[in-house]
């Protein structure tokens, strides 16, 4: 198995925020922390695009490089995780991350930064798998249950893909080559079938004069 990755198809994302809600619900994420969010470019303008963003579990993660207490590690599946018992909440990882993935809960009334919280690819953290301690600190460990991240599995349009990098790249490749590009992506023929689509031999012939 290669590395676990997310891939968001901007052609499909409809900005429903289902992924954000699924993540918050599944991991019991505290108020003020969004491990995942949907970013829209050219909002309201024809041709706007939305994309769901969280920790991308970088192969060469800058957060790992800048952490002064070295609390980050990468699992053998390529998921970037961290030990909250070590984190000092300095915020260096937030400045280093190009995706704004590290989040800091407001621990006190005066805005004191708590320990960093981020997407774990639903892989928990360095506690006993599926234990109470792991859930409280890091959220649910779906990978240990043989499941994929809740955000990707809940995505209604399957814009957000999550899983083994090679496999989701193959899914995306098949999708992109099937739907074509440019004006082929949208429109009547895409929604209701294309002329070149193979007809099933068992399908009955359309009655003459019937509605099309």
């Amino acid at each position, binding site marked *: 198995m290669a590395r676990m990755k997310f891939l968001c198809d901007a052609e499909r994302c409809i900005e429903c925020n289902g992924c954000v809600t699924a993540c918050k619900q599944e991991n019991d994420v505290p108020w003020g922390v969004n491990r995942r969010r949907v970013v829209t470019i050219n909002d309201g303008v024809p041709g706007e695009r939305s994309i769901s963003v969280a920790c991308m579990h970088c192969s060469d993660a800058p957060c790992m490089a800048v952490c002064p207490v070295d609390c980050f590690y990468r699992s053998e599946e390529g998921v970037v995780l961290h030990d909250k018992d070590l984190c000092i909440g300095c915020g260096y990882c937030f400045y280093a991350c190009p995706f704004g993935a590290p989040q800091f809960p407001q621990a006190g009334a005066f805005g004191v930064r708590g320990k960093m919280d981020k997407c774990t690819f639903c892989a928990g953290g360095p506690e006993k798998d599926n234990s109470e301690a792991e859930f409280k600190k890091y959220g649910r460990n779906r990978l240990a249950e043989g499941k994929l991240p809740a955000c990707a599995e809940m995505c209604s349009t399957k814009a957000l893909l999550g899983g083994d990098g090679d496999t989701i790249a193959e899914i995306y490749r098949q*999708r992109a080559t099937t739907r074509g590009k440019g004006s082929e992506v949208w429109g009547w023929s895409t929604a209701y079938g294309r002329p070149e689509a193979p007809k099933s031999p068992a399908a009955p012939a359309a009655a003459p004069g019937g509605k099309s």
Partner: protein
Amino acid sequence: MISKLMRIVAVASGAMAALMLAGCGERPQVIDYKQGKYQGKPDEPPYAAAPFNGNKDMWERDIRNRTQNQNEYRRIGS
């Protein structure tokens, strides 16, 4: 009287010595950092616990099948 005073001094000096020696047994309050190395607790692989019980092949097969559920061309047929 002198012997009593001597005993108090001996006990006091003994207690002082024990107190000072206790400092030598103090555990370090900070982690011994090794630059560039993960310093936290070790994590176990996702297939270590139930229901996979260390069966990596079974876990990988389950994840692969689950990933294909995101491929609607395979789910509904194209």
